[in-house]
C-alpha cells in the first residue's frame, strides 16, 4: 500500500518535461509501482495531447516531408554502449527499478557508520546527482533543513518521520522548507534518491554518515 506520492507540482513538472533529469528518474521509479500516479501522469499527457491538437498549425518548409521520407530507412541511432552496472548486493527478492536499466550503477561504497552509497550515473544527464542508499536500521537523524528539491523513493525497508511511515514504493519529497527527523526501520532501508546541486548527501542520511 503506497501512502506517499509526489506532490501535484512534481507530477505536473514530470509530465510536462520541466523536471530535472535526476528527479525524473526517481519519479519514474515511483510511477512504475504506483497505479494511481501512473494514471494521473497519463491524464496529464492526454491533457498535453489535447493542448497540442489546439495549436494553430505552423507550416513546415515545402521540402520537409520529402526530407523526412528520405531518412525513414536510415538506421536508428545505435543503442548506448555497454553500461557499467555493478551487481549490488540486495536483499533477496529485491530488484532495482526498471527505470535504472539505462543507467550506470556504482558499487556500494561505505561512507559512514551503517551507510552505503552507490552512485547512479545517467548517461543522458551525467551531471545529475542520483544515488542509491542503504542505511542500517534504527538510527535517528538530527533536526535540520536542506536546500533544493530532494526526492527519495523507498525500494526496500523503510523509515519514518513526522510526515509518516515510508515503506517500499513510497516517495519522500523535501525542500528547503522541510524539516525532518527520519528514523530508519529496524531492518534498514534502501532508497533511490535525487538531489539538486553538487554532490552531497540528502536529508535522509546526512547525519547518519556525518
Amino acid at each position, binding site marked *: 500500500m503506497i501512502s506517499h506520492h509526489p506532490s*501535484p*507540482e512534481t507530477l*505536473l513538472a514530470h509530465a*510536462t*518535461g*520541466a523536471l530535472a*533529469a535526476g528527479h525524473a528518474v526517481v519519479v519514474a521509479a515511483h510511477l512504475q509501482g504506483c497505479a494511481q500516479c501512473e494514471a494521473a501522469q*497519463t*491524464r496529464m*499527457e*492526454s*491533457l*498535453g*495531447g*489535447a*493542448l*497540442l*491538437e489546439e*495549436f*494553430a*498549425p*505552423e*507550416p*513546415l*518548409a515545402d521540402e*520537409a*516531408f520529402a*526530407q*523526412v*521520407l528520405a*531518412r*525513414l530507412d536510415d538506421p*536508428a*541511432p545505435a*543503442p*548506448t554502449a555497454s553500461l557499467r552496472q555493478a551487481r549490488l548486493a540486495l536483499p533477496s527478492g529485491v530488484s532495482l527499478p*526498471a527505470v535504472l*536499466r*539505462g543507467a550506470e550503477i556504482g558499487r556500494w561504497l561505505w561512507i559512514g557508520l551503517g551507510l552505503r552509497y552507490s552512485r547512479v550515473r545517467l*548517461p*543522458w*544527464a*551525467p551531471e545529475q546527482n542520483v544515488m542509491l542508499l542503504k542505511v542500517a536500521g534504527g538510527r535517528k537523524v538530527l533536526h535540520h533543513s536542506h536546500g533544493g528539491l530532494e526526492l527519495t523513493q523507498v525500494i526496500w525497508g523503510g523509515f519514518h518521520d513526522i510526515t509518516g511511515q515510508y515503506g517500499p514504493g513510497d516517495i519522500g519529497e523535501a525542500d528547503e522548507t522541510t524539516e525532518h527527523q527520519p528514523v530508519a526501520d529496524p531492518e534498514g532501508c534502501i532508497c533511490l534518491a535525487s538531489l539538486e546541486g553538487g554532490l552531497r548527501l540528502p536529508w535522509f542520511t546526512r547525519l547518519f554518515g556525518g
Partner: protein
Amino acid sequence: MISRVAETRDRQAYAALFKHFAPRVKAYLRRGGMDAGEAEELTQEVMLNIWRKAGYFDAARGGAATWVFAIVRNARIDHARRRRDARLTGQPPPEEADLAPSAESIALTTEREAHLRCALNSLGPEQKQIVQLSFFSDTPHTAIANALNLPLGTVKSRVRLAMAKLRVLLEEMP
C-alpha cells in the same frame, strides 16, 4: 493510424500523420521559445521518431495526440541537453507496448480523453491559459506571472487551483 504505421510500415498512413501532426509539433516547439529554424529541424527529428517508435504506441494508454505529445516533450528535453553537450545520448526508450490492447480498453481511453477535452474547454480563459503555459513554456512560473500580471509567489497556488478545477470538472462528467 499509428498502429498501421507500426504493423505494416504503411507510408500513406505515415503521410497523413505527418500532415496532421508536424505543423502542430512545430507550433509546440515555437511556443516553448525555439526559433523557426531550430523548431523546423527538431520537428523533422520528432516525425522521424514517430516512424521509428510507432511500435511503442499503446492505444489503451492514450490517443495519437497523447503519444505525440510525449514524444515531442522527450525530444525537447534531449535537444536542450545536447545543446549543452553534443556527446550525450538520448534517454533509453520505454519498454515495448503491448501491441494488442482490447477494443474495450481502447474505447474507454477514447471516452476518457473526450471527457478531458471537454473539461479543458470548460475552464475559464485565465485557468486555461495557466494550464497551457504550464505545459508549453520553458519557464512556466515566470511565464504565468508575466502573462497574468501576478506576483511570482502566487503562481504555484494558481497552477494548483487550475489543475484541481480540471479534476473536479472531470469527476462531474457522466
